[in-house]
């Protein structure tokens, strides 16, 4: 084994030495003046926010701001492209929330869940069931918190027993949990709508621009909140749990409490995403919410972006959704598109296993060199 791993390691290092390093050096030459120009801004940022969300270099700040500006001005540039970017980007916002939700639990603690779609489904189905069974239908201000609460409750129901289990057992149980949720929707089709699900949820709006912002703003708020948590003690402890749970108890910290907390945070996030998704298309059905493919997709997004980084999964989600709905469509037919998409994910897993966006972030961070 070691020999083979070494071989691919060698391949990696050749690629690094002959292609990546020189091009990075060239890029650094171009970028470092920009970095220097932006540095005062970064210093300001670090002074006021650094201790809450982490420190940045000038260029990293530039990248963040550029990304934010790009997201905020989507309605201005999206129509310039062939494609339905307004819708695709709105979808990407929802999936970013899912990917982040998965990440704050699985990515940070290393307890890999394959059942997260069940959590968003709990929220989506609650919204739908409230709409179907109550008349008059309660307002958003009621259904949304109740639905998020439902995700939290299901999250704790899954988390409490399964977090006692060690890694692979946990993964398998969550995988089975999501399949079970699916079976329940079919088995209790009278109550849960069966294969068709429900079409009863009121759509926020069909207007592309409004809808986009309705998805973007919660996504940014979730990202900010999770970044704060991830950069705090809680994030540190969660990572420590992933690395070495016994050391965490030896430090006088209760691993179970922290694991459950991450599950709770994650469930709430999934709940938020689930509610948004329900009101985005108005339909709540097993294929949209429950099936295990949805869990796998959110995992893929988080992993290609970079696990345990909050911002990585956002990048991963946007990349994944853009590739799937817009970019690959330019060249490939319907089933080939999916095969290509999964192939790309596989390549990222093998060759950039820490995630593309984490890699970019560090590369950009390294431009300034060792200024410190």
């Amino acid at each position, binding site marked *: 084994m070691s020999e083979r791993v070494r071989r691919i390691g060698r391949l990696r290092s050749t690629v690094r030495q002959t292609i990546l390093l020189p091009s990075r050096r060239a890029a650094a030459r171009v970028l470092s003046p920009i970095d220097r120009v932006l540095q005062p801004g970064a210093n300001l940022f670090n002074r006021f926010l650094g201790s809450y969300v982490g420190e940045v270099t000038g260029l990293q700040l530039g990248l963040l701001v550029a990304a934010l500006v790009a997201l905020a001005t989507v309605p201005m540039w999206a129509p310039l492209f062939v494609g339905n970017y307004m819708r695709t980007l709105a979808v990407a916002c929802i999936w970013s929330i899912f990917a982040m939700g998965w990440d704050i639990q699985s990515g940070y603690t290393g307890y890999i869940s394959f059942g997260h779609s069940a959590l968003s489904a709990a929220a989506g189905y609650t919204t739908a069931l409230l709409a179907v069974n109550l008349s008059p239908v309660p307002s958003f201000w009621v259904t949304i918190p109740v639905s998020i609460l439902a995700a939290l409750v299901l999250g704790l129901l899954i988390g409490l027993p399964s977090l006692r289990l060690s890694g692979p057992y946990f993964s398998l149980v969550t995988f089975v949990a999501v399949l079970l949720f699916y079976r329940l929707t079919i088995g209790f089709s009278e109550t849960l709508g069966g294969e068709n699900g429900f079409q009863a949820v009121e759509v926020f709006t069909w207007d592309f621009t409004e809808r986009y912002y309705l998805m973007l703003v919660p996504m940014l708020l979730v990202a900010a909140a999770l970044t704060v948590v991830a950069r705090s003690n809680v994030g540190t402890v969660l990572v420590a749990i992933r690395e070495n749970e016994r050391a965490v*108890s030896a430090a006088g910290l209760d691993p179970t409490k922290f694991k459950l907390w991450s599950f709770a945070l994650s469930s709430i996030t999934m709940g938020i995403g689930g509610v948004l998704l329900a009101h985005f298309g108005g339909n709540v059905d097993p294929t949209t919410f429950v099936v295990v493919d949805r869990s796998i997709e959110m995992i893929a997004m988080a992993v290609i972006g970079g696990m345990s980084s909050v911002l990585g999964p956002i990048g991963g989600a946007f990349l994944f959704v853009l590739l799937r709905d817009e970019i690959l469509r330019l060249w490939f037919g319907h089933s080939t598109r999916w095969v290509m998409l999964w192939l790309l994910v596989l390549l990222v897993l093998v060759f950039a296993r820490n995630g593309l966006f984490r890699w970019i972030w560090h590369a950009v961070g390294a431009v300034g060199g060792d200024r410190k």
Partner: protein
Amino acid sequence: MTLLEVDSLTKTFGGLVAVDDFSLSVERGEIVGLIGPNGSGKSTVFNCIMGLYDVTEGRIRFDGADITDDATHEVVNQGLSRVSQESNPIDSMSVADNIGLFTLPNSVFSLYGGASEAEIREYAARIDIEDDLDQMPSELPHADVRRLEIAKALATEPELLLLDEPFAGMNQAEIAELSAQIEGFREEGMTMVVVDHNMGGLMDLVDRVVVLNNGDFLAAGSPDAIAENERVQEAYLAGEGL
């Protein structure tokens, strides 16, 4: 005044009795040596105290409170800490962060508690690894990894420290240095129980020795008395420690 009281502790694994009706009490400010042949149950006693194993029978009290059924983190938060036989630092965190982790409050809502950089440096300095703070654990030589384990335990501000084979894998010079540091802890008011097979290091350090054999209490007394105890000689020492 008794700080730790292990009262008729029994621990069985299936049919195997690893610790059999063993009692031990440790006074505040003492350093007690716990020795015995391999597999005599020393680490098991520590594991029971730390809440890693469920106790089969017996009670454990610390500073008056019953901690028999407490989970590890609860025990730690009462002021007991253990340096285990195997080192297990978190490899992806620097030495400073490893120590820092041990100072964090056990609350999911406390986002920014924990020791400052200066405090972490202080913990490290007490065991002389303050120069390694920025290094990763995997870059450290064995002895420093062991020291890091001790620094982590110190960072929980324990009243009582359990040390499981602190000298293993160290050479004479290192043992002497570590002994001096442990002496220093005692002067700061810490109580300790030390398990080790290195008699040279241990006997000079401790006030009192308790000997375990096959899970049973075998003997107790001053280091000199133990070194001369025939049963201990036969079961364990083989001429060492004299």
